[in-house]
Protein backbone atom coordinates (compact mmCIF):
# COMPACT_ATOMS: atom_id res chain seq x y z
CA UNK A 1 0.00 0.00 0.00
CA UNK A 2 2.60 2.51 1.06
CA UNK A 3 4.95 1.40 -1.70
CA UNK A 4 2.31 2.00 -4.31
CA UNK A 5 1.78 5.58 -3.27
CA UNK A 6 5.45 6.32 -2.76
CA UNK A 7 6.59 5.14 -6.15
CA UNK A 8 3.69 7.05 -7.71
CA UNK A 9 4.80 10.19 -5.92
CA UNK A 10 8.49 9.95 -6.62
CA UNK A 11 9.10 8.21 -9.91
CA UNK A 12 8.51 11.34 -12.06
CA UNK A 13 11.24 13.59 -10.62
CA UNK A 14 13.80 10.76 -10.56
CA UNK A 15 12.96 9.57 -14.05
CA UNK A 16 12.87 13.05 -15.51
CA UNK A 17 16.33 13.89 -14.23
CA UNK A 18 18.41 11.33 -16.12
CA UNK A 19 17.13 11.90 -19.68
CA UNK A 20 17.22 15.65 -19.22
CA UNK A 21 20.83 15.73 -18.15
CA UNK A 22 22.27 13.28 -20.65
CA UNK A 23 20.99 14.33 -24.12
CA UNK A 24 21.97 17.95 -23.60
CA UNK A 25 25.61 16.82 -23.26
CA UNK A 26 25.36 14.06 -25.85
CA UNK A 27 24.56 16.69 -28.50
CA UNK A 28 28.13 18.00 -28.32
CA UNK A 29 29.74 14.58 -28.04
CA UNK A 30 29.61 12.26 -31.00
CA UNK A 31 31.61 9.28 -29.76
CA UNK A 32 29.68 6.77 -27.63
CA UNK A 33 32.57 6.37 -25.17
CA UNK A 34 32.59 10.14 -24.50
CA UNK A 35 28.87 10.00 -24.13
CA UNK A 36 29.16 7.29 -21.52
CA UNK A 37 31.88 9.14 -19.67
CA UNK A 38 29.80 12.30 -19.62
CA UNK A 39 26.81 10.34 -18.34
CA UNK A 40 28.83 8.78 -15.56
CA UNK A 41 30.27 12.20 -14.71
CA UNK A 42 26.78 13.66 -14.40
CA UNK A 43 25.77 10.65 -12.32
CA UNK A 44 28.70 11.10 -9.98
CA UNK A 45 27.77 14.75 -9.40
CA UNK A 46 24.03 14.24 -9.10
CA UNK A 47 23.95 10.93 -7.20
CA UNK A 48 25.33 12.11 -3.83
CA UNK A 49 22.58 14.72 -3.62
CA UNK A 50 19.76 12.98 -5.46
CA UNK A 51 19.95 9.60 -3.75
CA UNK A 52 19.61 10.81 -0.15
CA UNK A 53 16.77 13.10 -1.30
CA UNK A 54 15.16 10.11 -2.98
CA UNK A 55 15.27 8.17 0.28
CA UNK A 56 13.81 11.14 2.20
CA UNK A 57 11.04 11.47 -0.35
CA UNK A 58 10.24 7.78 -0.17
CA UNK A 59 10.02 7.83 3.61
CA UNK A 60 7.87 10.98 3.58
CA UNK A 61 5.47 9.51 1.03
CA UNK A 62 5.24 6.27 2.98
CA UNK A 63 4.42 8.24 6.11
CA UNK A 64 1.75 10.28 4.38
CA UNK A 65 0.26 7.09 2.96
CA UNK A 66 0.13 5.64 6.45
CA UNK A 67 -1.52 8.80 7.78
CA UNK A 68 -4.18 8.62 5.08
CA UNK A 69 -4.79 4.92 5.65
CA UNK A 70 -4.93 4.96 9.46
CA UNK A 71 -6.75 8.25 9.82
CA UNK A 72 -5.65 8.60 13.45
CA UNK A 73 -4.41 11.55 15.54
CA UNK A 74 -1.39 9.38 16.46
CA UNK A 75 -0.14 9.56 12.86
CA UNK A 76 -0.32 13.23 11.85
CA UNK A 77 -0.34 14.30 8.20
CA UNK A 78 2.71 15.95 6.67
CA UNK A 79 1.13 19.44 6.63
CA UNK A 80 0.51 19.20 10.37
CA UNK A 81 4.12 18.29 10.98
CA UNK A 82 5.13 21.16 8.71
CA UNK A 83 3.01 23.55 10.76
CA UNK A 84 4.69 22.37 13.97
CA UNK A 85 8.10 22.77 12.35
CA UNK A 86 7.25 26.31 11.39
CA UNK A 87 6.10 26.97 14.98
CA UNK A 88 9.25 25.72 16.67
CA UNK A 89 11.55 27.47 14.23
CA UNK A 90 9.68 30.76 14.56
CA UNK A 91 11.63 33.34 16.55
CA UNK A 92 14.71 31.15 16.88
CA UNK A 93 13.03 28.99 19.51
CA UNK A 94 14.46 25.77 18.09
CA UNK A 95 17.97 27.07 17.74
CA UNK A 96 17.99 28.34 21.31
CA UNK A 97 17.08 24.93 22.65
CA UNK A 98 19.42 23.20 20.23
CA UNK A 99 22.30 25.41 21.38
CA UNK A 100 21.63 24.44 25.00
CA UNK A 101 21.67 20.74 24.11
CA UNK A 102 24.74 21.14 21.90
CA UNK A 103 26.63 22.81 24.74
CA UNK A 104 25.87 19.85 27.04
CA UNK A 105 26.87 17.33 24.41
CA UNK A 106 29.98 19.33 23.54
CA UNK A 107 31.11 19.53 27.17
CA UNK A 108 30.58 15.81 27.80
CA UNK A 109 32.09 14.86 24.47
CA UNK A 110 35.21 16.94 25.09
CA UNK A 111 35.79 15.39 28.52
CA UNK A 112 35.28 11.86 27.20
CA UNK A 113 37.47 12.45 24.15
CA UNK A 114 40.39 13.83 26.16
CA UNK A 115 40.20 11.01 28.71
CA UNK A 116 39.85 8.35 26.02
CA UNK A 117 42.84 9.59 23.99
CA UNK A 118 45.10 9.72 27.06
CA UNK A 119 43.91 6.40 28.45
CA UNK A 120 43.95 4.78 25.00
CA UNK A 121 47.58 5.67 24.33
CA UNK A 122 48.57 4.61 27.87
CA UNK A 123 46.74 1.29 27.52
CA UNK A 124 48.17 0.64 24.08
CA UNK A 125 51.73 1.28 25.24
CA UNK A 126 51.66 -0.28 28.73
CA UNK A 127 50.24 -3.73 29.39
CA UNK A 128 49.79 -3.04 33.12
CA UNK A 129 47.60 -0.01 32.42
CA UNK A 130 45.63 -2.11 29.94
CA UNK A 131 45.01 -4.88 32.47
CA UNK A 132 44.05 -2.30 35.07
CA UNK A 133 41.52 -0.44 32.94
CA UNK A 134 40.05 -3.27 30.88
CA UNK A 135 37.32 -4.18 33.42
CA UNK A 136 36.22 -0.55 33.48
CA UNK A 137 35.65 -0.65 29.72
CA UNK A 138 33.72 -3.90 29.86
CA UNK A 139 31.47 -2.65 32.67
CA UNK A 140 31.16 0.78 31.08
CA UNK A 141 30.00 -0.72 27.80
CA UNK A 142 27.26 -2.75 29.47
CA UNK A 143 25.74 0.00 31.65
CA UNK A 144 22.77 1.54 29.79
CA UNK A 145 22.87 5.27 29.15
CA UNK A 146 19.58 5.51 31.01
CA UNK A 147 21.32 4.48 34.24
CA UNK A 148 24.00 7.15 33.89
CA UNK A 149 21.32 9.73 33.12
CA UNK A 150 19.34 8.85 36.26
CA UNK A 151 22.39 8.66 38.52
CA UNK A 152 23.83 11.94 37.31
CA UNK A 153 20.57 13.76 37.84
CA UNK A 154 20.51 12.36 41.39
CA UNK A 155 24.17 13.11 42.12
CA UNK A 156 24.65 16.44 40.42
CA UNK A 157 21.13 17.77 40.43
CA UNK A 158 20.10 19.95 37.55
CA UNK A 159 22.75 21.85 35.63
CA UNK A 160 25.47 21.55 33.06
CA UNK A 161 27.72 19.34 35.20
CA UNK A 162 25.27 16.48 35.51
CA UNK A 163 24.48 16.43 31.82
CA UNK A 164 28.14 16.62 30.82
CA UNK A 165 29.19 13.87 33.21
CA UNK A 166 26.35 11.59 32.10
CA UNK A 167 27.32 12.09 28.45
CA UNK A 168 31.01 11.57 29.19
CA UNK A 169 30.40 8.40 31.20
CA UNK A 170 28.18 6.88 28.54
CA UNK A 171 30.43 7.51 25.56
CA UNK A 172 33.92 7.18 27.06
CA UNK A 173 34.05 3.34 27.04
CA UNK A 174 33.11 3.01 23.38
CA UNK A 175 35.43 5.87 22.44
CA UNK A 176 38.26 4.34 24.43
CA UNK A 177 37.81 0.94 22.82
CA UNK A 178 37.96 2.56 19.39
CA UNK A 179 41.09 4.57 20.17
CA UNK A 180 42.77 1.59 21.85
CA UNK A 181 42.42 -0.41 18.67
CA UNK A 182 43.84 2.55 16.77
CA UNK A 183 46.86 2.74 19.10
CA UNK A 184 47.53 -0.98 18.69
CA UNK A 185 47.44 -0.56 14.92
CA UNK A 186 50.10 2.18 14.88
CA UNK A 187 52.90 1.00 12.66
CA UNK A 188 55.84 -0.23 14.77
CA UNK A 189 58.17 0.30 11.80
CA UNK A 190 57.32 4.01 11.70
CA UNK A 191 57.99 4.32 15.41
CA UNK A 192 61.44 2.88 14.68
CA UNK A 193 61.95 5.51 12.00
CA UNK A 194 61.01 8.19 14.53
CA UNK A 195 63.52 6.72 16.97
CA UNK A 196 66.19 6.61 14.27
CA UNK A 197 65.57 10.27 13.37
CA UNK A 198 65.48 11.16 17.11
CA UNK A 199 62.31 13.15 16.64
CA UNK A 200 61.25 15.20 19.67
CA UNK A 201 58.06 14.10 21.45
CA UNK A 202 56.08 17.05 20.10
CA UNK A 203 56.95 16.08 16.54
CA UNK A 204 56.24 12.40 17.18
CA UNK A 205 52.78 13.21 18.47
CA UNK A 206 51.99 15.64 15.67
CA UNK A 207 53.52 13.72 12.76
CA UNK A 208 53.06 10.09 13.76
CA UNK A 209 50.61 9.43 16.55
CA UNK A 210 47.87 11.86 15.66
CA UNK A 211 47.68 11.00 11.94
CA UNK A 212 47.94 7.28 12.71
CA UNK A 213 45.08 7.59 15.14
CA UNK A 214 42.99 9.79 12.87
CA UNK A 215 40.73 7.03 11.48
CA UNK A 216 40.11 5.76 15.01
CA UNK A 217 39.49 9.30 16.27
CA UNK A 218 37.04 10.09 13.48
CA UNK A 219 35.25 6.76 13.91
CA UNK A 220 35.17 7.35 17.65
CA UNK A 221 33.81 10.87 17.18
CA UNK A 222 30.95 9.55 15.05
CA UNK A 223 30.12 6.78 17.47
CA UNK A 224 30.50 9.08 20.47
CA UNK A 225 28.25 11.79 19.04
CA UNK A 226 25.51 9.33 18.17
CA UNK A 227 25.59 7.88 21.70
CA UNK A 228 25.82 11.34 23.28
CA UNK A 229 22.52 12.55 21.78
CA UNK A 230 20.66 9.58 23.17
CA UNK A 231 21.91 10.20 26.67
CA UNK A 232 21.63 13.98 26.77
CA UNK A 233 17.99 13.78 25.77
CA UNK A 234 17.36 11.43 28.69
CA UNK A 235 19.07 13.75 31.16
CA UNK A 236 17.06 16.71 29.91
CA UNK A 237 13.90 14.67 30.13
CA UNK A 238 14.51 13.65 33.75
CA UNK A 239 16.07 16.61 35.36
CA UNK A 240 16.32 19.75 33.27
CA UNK A 241 13.96 22.43 32.11
CA UNK A 242 15.53 23.24 28.80
CA UNK A 243 16.99 21.53 25.76
CA UNK A 244 15.63 19.23 23.10
CA UNK A 245 14.87 16.42 25.56
CA UNK A 246 12.80 18.73 27.75
CA UNK A 247 10.86 20.02 24.73
CA UNK A 248 10.21 16.49 23.53
CA UNK A 249 8.86 15.58 26.93
CA UNK A 250 6.57 18.59 27.12
CA UNK A 251 5.18 17.90 23.64
CA UNK A 252 4.68 14.32 24.77
CA UNK A 253 2.84 15.56 27.87
CA UNK A 254 0.57 17.69 25.66
CA UNK A 255 -0.08 14.61 23.48
CA UNK A 256 1.17 16.58 20.48
CA UNK A 257 2.57 13.85 18.22
CA UNK A 258 3.31 16.30 15.41
CA UNK A 259 5.30 18.39 17.90
CA UNK A 260 7.39 15.40 18.98
CA UNK A 261 8.10 14.57 15.35
CA UNK A 262 8.94 18.17 14.48
CA UNK A 263 11.52 18.46 17.27
CA UNK A 264 13.00 15.13 16.27
CA UNK A 265 13.25 16.18 12.64
CA UNK A 266 14.96 19.45 13.48
CA UNK A 267 17.35 17.57 15.70
CA UNK A 268 18.11 15.01 12.97
CA UNK A 269 18.73 17.82 10.50
CA UNK A 270 21.37 19.36 12.75
CA UNK A 271 22.97 15.92 13.14
CA UNK A 272 22.99 15.54 9.37
CA UNK A 273 24.76 18.86 8.95
CA UNK A 274 27.34 17.85 11.56
CA UNK A 275 27.91 14.49 9.88
CA UNK A 276 27.96 15.52 6.21
CA UNK A 277 29.08 19.09 6.58
CA UNK A 278 31.76 18.75 9.23
CA UNK A 279 32.92 15.20 9.94
CA UNK A 280 32.79 13.88 6.37
CA UNK A 281 34.60 16.95 4.99
CA UNK A 282 37.19 16.72 7.73
CA UNK A 283 37.76 13.05 7.01
CA UNK A 284 38.03 13.67 3.28
CA UNK A 285 40.66 16.33 3.86
CA UNK A 286 42.67 14.42 6.46
CA UNK A 287 42.71 11.20 4.44
CA UNK A 288 43.75 12.74 1.13
CA UNK A 289 47.06 10.84 1.19
CA UNK A 290 45.28 7.52 0.96
CA UNK A 291 45.15 5.68 -2.34
CA UNK A 292 41.92 3.76 -2.82
CA UNK A 293 41.88 0.40 -4.57
CA UNK A 294 40.51 0.56 -8.09
CA UNK A 295 38.99 -2.94 -7.98
Amino acid at each position, binding site marked *: MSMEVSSGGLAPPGAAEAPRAVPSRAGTLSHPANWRRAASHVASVVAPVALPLLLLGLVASAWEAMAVALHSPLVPHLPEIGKELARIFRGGHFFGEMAVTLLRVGAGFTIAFAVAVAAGIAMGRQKTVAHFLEPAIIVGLTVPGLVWALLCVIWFGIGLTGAAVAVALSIAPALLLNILQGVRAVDA*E*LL*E*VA*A*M*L*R*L*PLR*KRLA*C*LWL*PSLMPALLGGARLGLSLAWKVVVLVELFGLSSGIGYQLNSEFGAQNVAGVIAWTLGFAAVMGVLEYGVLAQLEHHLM*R*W*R*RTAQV
Partner: protein
Amino acid sequence: MSSDIVIEGLGKAYAPRGGRRPAVIFDGLDMRVEAGQLVALVGPSGCGKSTLLNLIAGLDAPDAGAIRFDGRARDSRLAMVFQQPRLVDWLTAEENIALAFEREGSRPRGDAREMVRALLRKVGLVDHAGAYPQFLSGGQRQRVAIARAFAVDPDILLLDEPFSALDELTARRLRLLLQSLWGEADGPRPTGVLVTHNMLEAALLADRIFVLNGHPGRFAAVMDIDLPHPRDPEDPALFAIHRQVLHALGEA
Protein backbone atom coordinates in the same frame (compact mmCIF):
# COMPACT_ATOMS: atom_id res chain seq x y z
CA MET B 1 83.88 13.77 13.25
CA SER B 2 82.78 10.21 12.56
CA SER B 3 83.15 7.32 14.95
CA ASP B 4 84.45 3.79 15.04
CA ILE B 5 81.78 1.17 15.49
CA VAL B 6 83.00 -1.40 18.01
CA ILE B 7 81.03 -4.57 18.67
CA GLU B 8 82.21 -6.96 21.38
CA GLY B 9 80.81 -10.35 22.36
CA LEU B 10 77.43 -9.58 20.87
CA GLY B 11 74.67 -12.05 21.77
CA LYS B 12 71.11 -11.93 20.46
CA ALA B 13 68.32 -14.47 20.55
CA TYR B 14 64.65 -14.10 19.69
CA ALA B 15 62.21 -15.57 22.18
CA PRO B 16 60.22 -18.56 20.98
CA ARG B 17 56.92 -17.56 19.49
CA GLY B 18 54.03 -19.57 18.12
CA GLY B 19 55.60 -23.00 18.68
CA ARG B 20 58.98 -22.00 17.25
CA ARG B 21 62.14 -22.78 19.14
CA PRO B 22 64.15 -19.81 20.41
CA ALA B 23 66.35 -18.59 17.60
CA VAL B 24 69.94 -17.72 18.52
CA ILE B 25 71.02 -15.16 15.94
CA PHE B 26 74.38 -14.13 17.42
CA ASP B 27 76.49 -15.67 20.13
CA GLY B 28 79.69 -13.79 20.85
CA LEU B 29 80.13 -11.77 17.65
CA ASP B 30 82.98 -9.28 17.41
CA MET B 31 83.27 -6.58 14.76
CA ARG B 32 85.06 -3.30 14.29
CA VAL B 33 84.45 -0.64 11.68
CA GLU B 34 87.06 2.11 11.47
CA ALA B 35 85.84 5.69 11.46
CA GLY B 36 85.22 6.98 7.95
CA GLN B 37 85.18 3.54 6.37
CA LEU B 38 82.34 2.00 4.44
CA VAL B 39 82.08 -1.74 5.00
CA ALA B 40 79.82 -4.22 3.26
CA LEU B 41 77.94 -6.95 5.07
CA VAL B 42 76.99 -9.91 2.91
CA GLY B 43 75.45 -13.26 3.72
CA PRO B 44 72.52 -15.52 2.94
CA SER B 45 68.93 -14.51 3.67
CA GLY B 46 67.94 -14.91 7.31
CA CYS B 47 71.48 -14.96 8.73
CA GLY B 48 70.92 -11.80 10.80
CA LYS B 49 72.13 -8.86 8.72
CA SER B 50 69.09 -6.68 9.38
CA THR B 51 69.15 -7.74 13.01
CA LEU B 52 72.75 -6.55 13.30
CA LEU B 53 71.89 -3.16 11.77
CA ASN B 54 68.94 -2.77 14.15
CA LEU B 55 71.23 -3.51 17.08
CA ILE B 56 73.80 -0.96 15.89
CA ALA B 57 71.03 1.61 15.40
CA GLY B 58 69.79 1.01 18.94
CA LEU B 59 66.36 -0.06 17.73
CA ASP B 60 66.81 -3.41 19.46
CA ALA B 61 68.78 -4.32 22.59
CA PRO B 62 71.46 -7.03 22.61
CA ASP B 63 71.17 -9.90 25.11
CA ALA B 64 74.91 -9.90 25.72
CA GLY B 65 77.96 -7.88 24.77
CA ALA B 66 78.23 -4.23 23.86
CA ILE B 67 78.09 -1.89 20.88
CA ARG B 68 80.05 1.34 21.20
CA PHE B 69 80.75 4.30 18.97
CA ASP B 70 84.32 5.28 19.80
CA GLY B 71 86.17 8.45 19.04
CA ARG B 72 83.14 10.64 18.74
CA ALA B 73 83.36 14.37 19.20
CA ARG B 74 79.61 14.83 19.54
CA ASP B 75 76.54 12.73 19.92
CA SER B 76 76.67 10.43 16.90
CA ARG B 77 74.14 11.27 14.23
CA LEU B 78 72.90 7.98 12.93
CA ALA B 79 70.84 7.38 9.81
CA MET B 80 69.48 4.15 8.42
CA VAL B 81 67.94 3.12 5.13
CA PHE B 82 65.65 0.24 6.03
CA GLN B 83 65.04 -2.81 3.89
CA GLN B 84 61.55 -1.41 3.19
CA PRO B 85 61.20 2.33 2.46
CA ARG B 86 59.20 3.01 5.68
CA LEU B 87 57.96 6.42 4.61
CA VAL B 88 55.30 8.31 6.51
CA ASP B 89 52.24 7.83 4.30
CA TRP B 90 50.52 11.12 5.16
CA LEU B 91 53.55 13.28 4.41
CA THR B 92 54.66 14.13 0.87
CA ALA B 93 58.04 13.01 -0.44
CA GLU B 94 59.41 16.44 0.41
CA GLU B 95 57.97 16.45 3.93
CA ASN B 96 59.28 12.93 4.55
CA ILE B 97 62.80 14.10 3.80
CA ALA B 98 62.38 17.30 5.79
CA LEU B 99 61.46 15.18 8.82
CA ALA B 100 65.17 14.44 9.17
CA PHE B 101 65.77 18.12 10.02
CA GLU B 102 63.43 17.92 13.01
CA ARG B 103 65.95 15.99 15.05
CA GLU B 104 65.92 16.68 18.77
CA GLY B 105 68.35 19.38 19.81
CA SER B 106 69.53 20.12 16.28
CA ARG B 107 69.70 23.65 15.01
CA PRO B 108 68.55 24.42 11.48
CA ARG B 109 71.41 24.12 8.99
CA GLY B 110 70.52 26.72 6.43
CA ASP B 111 67.51 26.67 4.17
CA ALA B 112 65.75 23.34 4.78
CA ARG B 113 63.56 23.68 1.69
CA GLU B 114 66.51 24.23 -0.58
CA MET B 115 68.40 21.30 0.96
CA VAL B 116 65.43 19.01 0.40
CA ARG B 117 65.28 20.17 -3.22
CA ALA B 118 68.97 19.42 -3.68
CA LEU B 119 68.55 15.92 -2.26
CA LEU B 120 65.50 15.27 -4.44
CA ARG B 121 67.53 16.36 -7.44
CA LYS B 122 70.30 13.94 -6.49
CA VAL B 123 67.91 10.98 -6.35
CA GLY B 124 66.06 12.18 -9.46
CA LEU B 125 62.68 12.94 -7.90
CA VAL B 126 62.25 16.72 -8.19
CA ASP B 127 59.06 16.22 -10.17
CA HIS B 128 57.56 14.13 -7.38
CA ALA B 129 58.35 16.47 -4.47
CA GLY B 130 54.69 16.91 -3.59
CA ALA B 131 53.56 13.32 -4.12
CA TYR B 132 52.31 11.13 -1.28
CA PRO B 133 54.21 7.83 -0.92
CA GLN B 134 51.21 5.67 -1.88
CA PHE B 135 51.25 7.37 -5.26
CA LEU B 136 54.95 6.63 -5.87
CA SER B 137 56.47 3.48 -7.36
CA GLY B 138 58.43 1.08 -5.18
CA GLY B 139 61.79 2.32 -6.45
CA GLN B 140 60.76 5.96 -6.07
CA ARG B 141 59.82 5.33 -2.46
CA GLN B 142 63.17 3.70 -1.82
CA ARG B 143 64.91 6.73 -3.30
CA VAL B 144 62.98 9.04 -0.96
CA ALA B 145 64.15 6.86 1.93
CA ILE B 146 67.75 7.18 0.73
CA ALA B 147 67.39 10.96 0.47
CA ARG B 148 65.95 11.05 4.00
CA ALA B 149 68.98 9.20 5.36
CA PHE B 150 71.35 11.60 3.60
CA ALA B 151 69.36 14.53 5.00
CA VAL B 152 70.37 13.46 8.50
CA ASP B 153 73.97 14.33 7.54
CA PRO B 154 75.03 11.22 9.45
CA ASP B 155 78.20 10.26 11.29
CA ILE B 156 77.03 6.67 11.01
CA LEU B 157 75.10 5.49 7.99
CA LEU B 158 73.46 2.07 7.93
CA LEU B 159 72.07 0.84 4.61
CA ASP B 160 69.97 -2.32 4.35
CA GLU B 161 69.88 -3.40 0.70
CA PRO B 162 69.20 0.19 -0.38
CA PHE B 163 69.39 -0.40 -4.13
CA SER B 164 67.84 -3.84 -4.52
CA ALA B 165 64.44 -2.47 -5.57
CA LEU B 166 65.89 -0.27 -8.33
CA ASP B 167 66.58 -0.79 -12.01
CA GLU B 168 70.23 -1.28 -12.85
CA LEU B 169 70.81 2.20 -14.27
CA THR B 170 69.26 4.07 -11.33
CA ALA B 171 71.04 1.75 -8.91
CA ARG B 172 74.33 2.49 -10.61
CA ARG B 173 73.72 6.24 -10.41
CA LEU B 174 72.90 6.02 -6.71
CA ARG B 175 75.93 3.82 -5.99
CA LEU B 176 78.09 6.53 -7.49
CA LEU B 177 76.23 9.08 -5.36
CA LEU B 178 77.00 7.01 -2.28
CA GLN B 179 80.61 6.69 -3.39
CA SER B 180 80.85 10.46 -3.80
CA LEU B 181 79.64 10.86 -0.21
CA TRP B 182 82.85 9.10 0.83
CA GLY B 183 84.95 10.54 -1.96
CA GLU B 184 84.30 14.21 -1.23
CA ALA B 185 87.47 15.54 0.34
CA ASP B 186 85.83 18.32 2.36
CA GLY B 187 84.09 17.39 5.59
CA PRO B 188 84.46 14.20 7.56
CA ARG B 189 83.24 10.97 6.01
CA PRO B 190 80.56 9.00 7.73
CA THR B 191 81.18 5.48 9.00
CA GLY B 192 79.02 3.16 6.95
CA VAL B 193 77.66 -0.37 6.96
CA LEU B 194 76.05 -1.53 3.73
CA VAL B 195 74.06 -4.76 3.61
CA THR B 196 73.86 -6.11 0.10
CA HIS B 197 73.26 -9.27 -1.91
CA ASN B 198 75.13 -7.78 -4.83
CA MET B 199 78.82 -8.76 -4.52
CA LEU B 200 79.88 -6.35 -7.26
CA GLU B 201 78.21 -3.53 -5.38
CA ALA B 202 80.10 -4.58 -2.25
CA ALA B 203 83.37 -4.69 -4.19
CA LEU B 204 82.71 -1.30 -5.78
CA LEU B 205 81.89 0.61 -2.60
CA ALA B 206 83.39 -1.11 0.42
CA ASP B 207 86.74 -0.74 2.10
CA ARG B 208 86.13 -4.08 3.73
CA ILE B 209 83.67 -6.94 3.22
CA PHE B 210 82.30 -8.97 6.14
CA VAL B 211 80.84 -12.32 5.10
CA LEU B 212 78.25 -13.39 7.67
CA ASN B 213 77.02 -16.97 7.75
CA GLY B 214 75.61 -19.75 9.91
CA HIS B 215 73.37 -20.11 12.95
CA PRO B 216 74.36 -18.46 15.18
CA GLY B 217 75.93 -15.99 12.78
CA ARG B 218 79.72 -15.76 12.52
CA PHE B 219 82.02 -14.02 10.11
CA ALA B 220 83.10 -16.66 7.61
CA ALA B 221 85.54 -14.20 6.06
CA VAL B 222 86.64 -10.58 6.32
CA MET B 223 88.23 -9.15 3.18
CA ASP B 224 90.05 -5.86 2.83
CA ILE B 225 89.55 -4.22 -0.55
CA ASP B 226 92.66 -2.21 -1.19
CA LEU B 227 91.67 -0.67 -4.53
CA PRO B 228 91.84 3.13 -4.52
CA HIS B 229 88.68 5.25 -4.55
CA PRO B 230 86.82 6.27 -6.60
CA ARG B 231 86.52 2.93 -8.35
CA ASP B 232 85.27 2.21 -11.82
CA PRO B 233 82.27 -0.15 -11.96
CA GLU B 234 83.91 -1.82 -14.99
CA ASP B 235 87.23 -2.53 -13.25
CA PRO B 236 88.08 -6.24 -13.76
CA ALA B 237 89.59 -6.34 -10.26
CA LEU B 238 86.06 -6.03 -8.89
CA PHE B 239 85.06 -9.26 -10.60
CA ALA B 240 87.95 -11.05 -8.92
CA ILE B 241 86.70 -9.86 -5.53
CA HIS B 242 83.19 -10.90 -6.52
CA ARG B 243 84.47 -14.46 -7.08
CA GLN B 244 86.36 -14.46 -3.78
CA VAL B 245 83.25 -13.45 -1.81
CA LEU B 246 81.15 -16.14 -3.49
CA HIS B 247 83.86 -18.63 -2.68
CA ALA B 248 83.91 -17.54 1.00
CA LEU B 249 80.14 -17.91 1.18
CA GLY B 250 80.32 -21.38 -0.33
CA GLU B 251 83.04 -22.53 2.04
CA ALA B 252 81.15 -21.74 5.21
